[in-house]
């Protein structure tokens, strides 16, 4: 009997909970660190960006309406699913040039990052919200609300960096359209398989692979995107995107040179929150 043919994975996009190819039909060649062909990944177009934003918008109100407790459970579930695929992610990270121990450490850190942010889901309101003293018989509360649809240009750290920019966006009730790392897009699509099996509603996270310089400006200029995180955009692209984002007053987070293994702090979560203040008469 002849040797069994290998069954290789088609790396597609992740939009609205489904895995479509790019509407353009284009692909990009992804090589490993030694220059050997790994896969042809989908090369998203502006229309895929458009579709992803529509999916993210559709999912946003429902995701934000969930309790923080429930979002925390779901983020923790993502960590569990990622744990179950440890070996696969270690292999994919080794293809990008990491050593065995370093790859394993990065996967561990990524899983722990989900758990860390999961814990924040029902606590961020206590930290960023407040009960304000006012000169009248009213309770006055400030509570954090999600910004809405957030565009994310992911950094080149293909797993830990990606998780570190997605988790803080979605944990508070935003939905995300993410442009994955250009040199290392494959772990992003494998992460999408994790998200798709973790009770994350379709459309909460949408992952696009392709050229950043082609996709980021469409996200930045899109009038139905409320904020953009330019973590992975080089300086000139980030400047262009920030300018385009000003048109509808998007919140913009410019790249900060990051050591993704460091303690993330709450800055990324609070960058995509709005504050709502409500008055309520005392004694009613």
């Amino acid at each position, binding site marked *: 009997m002849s040797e069994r043919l290998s069954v290789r994975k088609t790396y597609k996009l992740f939009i609205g909970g489904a895995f479509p190819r790019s509407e353009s039909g284009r692909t990009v060649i992804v090589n490993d660190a030694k220059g050997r062909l790994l896969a042809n990944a989908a090369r998203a177009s502006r229309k895929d*960006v458009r579709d992803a934003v529509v999916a993210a918008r559709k999912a946003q109100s429902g995701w934000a309406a969930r309790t923080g407790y429930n979002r925390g459970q779901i983020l923790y579930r993502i960590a569990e699913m990622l744990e179950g695929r440890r070996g696969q992610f270690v292999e994919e990270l080794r293809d990008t040039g990491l050593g065995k121990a370093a790859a394993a450490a990065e996967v561990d850190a990524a899983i722990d990052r989900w758990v860390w942010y999961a814990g924040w889901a029902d606590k961020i309101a206590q930290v960023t919200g407040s009960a304000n003293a006012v000169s009248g018989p009213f309770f006055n509360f400030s509570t954090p609300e999600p910004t809405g649809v957030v565009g994310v240009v992911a950094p080149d750290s293909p797993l830990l960096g990606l998780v570190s920019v997605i988790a803080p966006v979605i944990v508070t009730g935003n939905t995300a359209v993410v442009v994955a790392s250009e040199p290392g897009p494959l772990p992003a699509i494998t992460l999408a398989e994790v998200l798709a099996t973790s009770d994350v509603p379709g459309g909460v996270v949408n992952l696009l692979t392709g050229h950043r310089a082609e996709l980021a400006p469409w996200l930045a*200029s*899109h*009038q*139905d*995107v409320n904020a953009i995180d330019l973590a992975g955009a080089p300086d000139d692209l980030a400047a262009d995107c920030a300018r385009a984002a000003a048109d509808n007053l998007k919140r913009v987070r410019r790249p900060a040179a990051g050591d993704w293994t460091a303690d993330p702090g709450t800055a990324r979560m609070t960058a995509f929150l709005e504050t709502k203040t409500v008055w309520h008469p005392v004694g009613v």
Partner: protein
Amino acid sequence: MPDLSTFAEAAISPAELRGFLRGLPPVDQVGAEERAARLATRSIKTSAKAYAIDLAISMVDLTTLEGADTPGKVRALCAKAAHPDPADASVPKVAAVCVYSDLVGEAAGALKGTGVGVASVATAFPSGRAPLDAKLADTRRAIDDGASEIDMVIDRGAFLAGDYQKVYDEIVAIKAECGDVHLKVILETGELVTYDNVRRASWLAMLAGADFIKTSTGKVSPAATLPVTLVMLEAVRDFRARTGRQIGVKPAGGIRTTKDAIKYLVLVNETAGPDWLSPDWFRLGASSLLNDLLMQRRKLTTGVYGGPDYFTLD
């Protein structure tokens, strides 16, 4: 086939009418669906798309047919019909506003001088289950209040029972009541079951004096579909070839995106011909479609994707 000129007298026997309608060639179902699907793959881009969007806007019958319609909602809809995008005066106005007959007065007042028509559904819309004198009174009231177009429903029950004459007589009676006012006849194709019936109902309505044939009320699923519209477009094309009289077509219900609207325009151009590419001969009954058309139009003019936040809700 009998000589069609005899039908113009409205004095044909039930047997003749029945024989004519039953004698119409049957529709090739698979062929019609394939043809509609094939035409739907045409790619319309850039300047052709801009033309198609403006044409589609000018063909929209902006519709609100809810039990919860208020005079305020109708006025808001009328304002939108006359100036679909208040920020851009180059956007054409829509063809008409379509409301229930009791709100015609409200719409006619709000639209005075704008050139936008007032269409009223009448004749016990959407079911059509009422005695003829009630239907006639409904129609008369709408016309008295200022309707420029009447959208009537046919009696599907009589049609399906094979009583074509009853359906025919009803359309003739309503048309007589309308006089010069445009009469659109709603076939409610979702209840006619087969394409053969759609073809028969189309001919029946045209013979009885309809100015437009319309697919559906929007209250029954499926509403307008491409193959059904294809069959109706073939009917108006063949009718003009035989009688010289041109009849309009209006698909309504379920047309929500610019892409859908452009598919219909392609279908019109390829089936009935470019003579029908005008709001006088083709309409799109819709409500949410207009916002999508405006959004696509702005994408073409500004180069960036818009969002629903920037257009009025209706």
